């Protein structure tokens, strides 16, 4: 959402504190860092290597790299960006050996148009109410809260995210699970601002459609 600027200062303070604790040898601080970055790291690693097992090895290797570099880290980037960059470098090295990598920069999402919503749901582009909904999407605000955040619904969303193409999955994991900013994603995976947004938009649109099938039946 449009809250990046407002929360950035608070996030920086929090980060400085966690960093100081880890540097002082606080195991719990490191453990919580490892827990909180795990989904994003795994998501990113899986765009570069074939299997989940190898991705987990990459994440572990990246953390060892983080520990090695901790004393030299000068906070020229955010801690999160720095850690995720180490991960990407580790994954690329490994991905080269694994002979699979999905280079973000070679994606040209603008070339093929994938609509966010099935064009069938809109009126024809000419005539009265051109390109307007032929039937409105439903009002999820009228859904009971427990339906939206219930385990079954979250499972549907989780499966939809897992089924996304690797590059979309990585971007949505970084943005919506790990809470990275758009800029952080661009810095970490070497993707243009425009492509980052297209990947995120496609990912969210696909997940929304899955959620709609589940909630509206």
């Amino acid at each position, binding site marked *: 959402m449009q809250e990046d600027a407002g929360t950035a200062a608070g996030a920086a303070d929090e980060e400085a504190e966690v960093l100081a604790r880890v540097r002082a040898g606080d195991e719990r601080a490191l453990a919580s860092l490892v827990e909180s970055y795990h*989904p994003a790291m795994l998501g990113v690693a899986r765009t570069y290597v074939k299997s989940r097992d190898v991705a987990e090895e990459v994440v572990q290797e990246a953390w060892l790299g983080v520990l090695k570099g901790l004393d030299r880290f000068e906070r020229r980037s955010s801690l999160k960006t720095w850690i995720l960059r180490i991960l990407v470098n580790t994954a690329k090295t490994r991905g080269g050996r694994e002979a699979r990598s999905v280079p973000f920069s070679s994606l040209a999402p603008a070339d093929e148009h994938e609509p966010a919503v099935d*064009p069938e749901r*809109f009126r024809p582009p000419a005539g009265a109410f051109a390109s307007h909904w032929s039937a409105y999407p439903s009002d999820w605000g009228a859904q009971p809260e427990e339906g939206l955040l219930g385990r079954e619904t979250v499972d549907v969303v989780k499966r939809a995210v897992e089924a996304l193409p690797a590059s979309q999955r990585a971007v949505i994991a970084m943005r919506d699970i790990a*809470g990275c900013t758009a800029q952080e994603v661009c810095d970490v995976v070497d993707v243009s601002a425009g492509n980052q947004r297209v990947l995120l938009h496609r990912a*969210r649109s696909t997940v929304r459609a899955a959620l709609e099938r589940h909630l509206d039946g």
Partner: protein
Amino acid sequence: MAESTDHVTCQEVVELVTEYFDGALTADEAEVFEQHLNFCEGCEWYVDQMRTTVSTVGHIPEEKVPPEMRDRLMAAFRDWRQS
């Protein structure tokens, strides 16, 4: 963005939601986008659905760190601390 700057269709709105959330639309574009929502309940609900989608993705239970990885990292951390 649409060819004309004073009007967007519903089919265009659904493609602009992510840019809108990210504050990546120009002030004029955002204005046109919001004007559309004021008069179109369908798009208002759609944008709300996208917001719900984003927050639900944020509720996916975090993947657990495998215990072996955790143990190994903590051991490495203890070594690092002592070095």
